[in-house]
């Protein structure tokens, strides 16, 4: 017992600050937000317990809640597969031997290190209805382009297109995965007459499936939490964030506005816990489904 005392002490000495930080700055605020989700709280007046009213209002009366859920789910369903596919496709190309490979890897990664707000501001000018680059190009061909950024029909597709610009991080992870695939397997398959698609389908994909799975899980979580993209999109146009007509009102943005623009901290806390539950459920579902197609080589 005595011999373990110094080990225990060292454990607390090194892990203690991190654990204390986690308890103080993560766990406690989380539990506090759970309590607040049952309260009406505007930061200034003391929190007032109102039971489930926040949850009931969100689910039955709030005009913004379900539109923000819809926007976020549509974005996730479209953007995540496109982003993962683009990252995998480019990673496959950049994994080919050849000169300038490092240069192109850097080029494709560069957009990911740009601040999201700056990228969005530039894209908003490109997609501007009057005088925007895209509509000017379309006009050269005699086509009148729509009001891309201020149309409820086009605003979300435009945001999805903008978000695809930065797939550098999943691309790097795919590259790491692709480089662990043994070359002998490709050589053996080639000798047996397997074509490029067959090699990809039966060698590459199974062997990088853990990496693919990781990117899918992170992509879903990231898409469900989108905030800065939508906020910058509204701000760059001088519009109310989330507009037009709630077409870009992402769940995270809606939550932020409830909390920090209108100080409905109780309502925002309830939204945060609903999001937490949904992410937990989808991640669990991902892991369940992942068992069917992810190969860990055991």
């Amino acid at each position, binding site marked *: 017992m005595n011999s373990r005392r110094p080990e225990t002490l060292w454990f607390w000495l090194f892990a203690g600050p991190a654990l204390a930080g986690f308890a103080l700055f993560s766990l406690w605020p989380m539990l506090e937000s759970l309590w607040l989700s049952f309260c009406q709280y505007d*930061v200034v*007046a003391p929190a007032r317990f109102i039971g489930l009213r926040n949850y009931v209002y969100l689910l039955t009366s709030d*005009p913004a809640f379900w*539109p923000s859920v819809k926007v976020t789910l549509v974005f996730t369903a479209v953007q995540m597969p496109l982003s993962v596919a683009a990252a995998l496709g480019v990673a496959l190309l950049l994994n080919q031997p050849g000169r300038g490979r490092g240069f192109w890897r850097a080029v494709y990664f560069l957009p990911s290190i740009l601040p999201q707000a700056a990228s969005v501001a530039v894209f908003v000018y490109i997609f501007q209805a009057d005088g925007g680059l895209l509509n000017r190009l379309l006009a050269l061909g005699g086509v009148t382009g729509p009001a891309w950024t*201020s149309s409820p029909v086009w605003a979300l597709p435009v945001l999805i297109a903008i978000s695809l610009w930065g797939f550098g991080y999943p691309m790097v992870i795919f590259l790491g995965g692709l480089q662990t695939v043994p070359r002998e397997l490709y050589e053996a398959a080639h000798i047996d007459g397997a074509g490029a698609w067959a090699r990809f389908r039966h060698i590459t994909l199974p062997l990088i499936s853990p990496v693919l799975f990781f990117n899918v899980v992170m992509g879903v979580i990231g898409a469900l939490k989108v905030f800065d993209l939508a906020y910058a999109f509204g701000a760059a146009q001088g519009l109310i964030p989330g507009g*037009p*007509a709630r077409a870009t009102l992402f769940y995270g943005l809606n939550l932020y506005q409830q909390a920090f623009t209108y100080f409905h901290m109780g309502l925002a806390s309830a939204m945060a816990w609903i999001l937490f539950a949904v992410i937990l459920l989808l991640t669990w579902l991902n892991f369940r489904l992942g068992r069917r197609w992810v190969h860990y080589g055991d």
Partner: protein
Amino acid sequence: MLTRHRELLLWLVIGLLAAAGFWWAGRSRAPAAEEGRKVITWIVFISPLRDLYEQQIAEFERQHPDITVRIIWVPQSEYHMKFKTLAAAGQTPDMFYSGDVWLSYLMPFMADLSPLVKRDAGEIGLDDYFPEIRAAMQHAGRYYVVPEAVNISLLYYNRRLFRAAGLAEPSPEWTWDDLVRAGQKLTRPATAGDPGVWGCSRMEGWWGEWLTYIRQAGGTVFSPDGRRCVLDSPEAITGLRFYLEKSSKYHISAPGGHEPLNGFVNGRVAMLVVGHVNFWLNYNQVPDLDWDVQLLPAGPHSRTGGEVAIAGYSLSRTCRHPEATWALMKFMTRPEVIRHVVARGGVAVRRSIAEAEMRDPRGRSHPQNLAAVYGQLRYSLPIPRHPNFIEIMLQVVQPEVDRMILGELSPEETGRRAAGAVNAYLATFAPPAP
């Protein structure tokens, strides 16, 4: 290996460090009195008037050696978050910017200025404020704001485009019909090489223009007791319809989402309804922009409906030095400061300054029609006084109006949906308007 003694010592050091950290993080940052001086705090957002404020504060401190003013500069977009955070921490600034849009929202923090205003009515020149401005300074008959500036909704027009179309300039008798007739003559479709001209703008994304039409048609947002939203009334729907039909029926405004960027400035929009006086300085920096203003065209019910929004100062309910802060408020709103504000493109809140400006307009740039600027005051109304007005309008109502101008909803559906959503909101969260 640590001895038991050293182990205890180590824990003691860790404990002390943690305690010091907590003390440092939680210590009060309230300004302490400096050598017997009264320290008052003033939160203000960063604006082009910053140098004026700093000069005035230096002068105030020189005249009041027992008072130190600490200015908390905040970017405008972060003003209310900073304010509420300070209030939550028990450090509400002694003096703060407030105004018509925010008056009800900030009401829980404001001291009733009525006793001070009445006591010093002569000194502050209460009668010198326009009656409409005096009304906007009050809530339920009590004073809460002393104004520095005001925004008045007006009809802006491009004189060059009117001349080119052979049209007489807008008159004070104009109605919606006149606006439409002129707008149709001024509208020139875009062709290859010519971006064209829209007769009239349509402000999208906020309530400024459509609320004006609703009021001019006899409608409003809330019932008199503030417990119900009445945007589904026939009058409100008439106002919404005119807002929509400017593009869908009369074709004098760009369709939804196509409002030309800075259209009025670059001569692609001939008239601008409502506008904002803050843009005057920008307009006057455009060399070829020959513009002026007129009273807003009258609606089917009345001309009254445009916005009068004062911007000024309020005193914190928890102010530690109310007399010293009141002295600062009086100093910052005295005629000399207002003249500076007007010289930088603002509208005078004091009648004496406005009249002097009208008597001697020499050297004055646009707008020339000051009679319309100050005449419009008679037809202006403050924003409905509801604490959650901004949230209700921007988050609950505006998305429905957006859908209307994009052709997804009729004015009737818009009014019905907006009223239903606002009433659900009011029933759940918002207290009724006082």
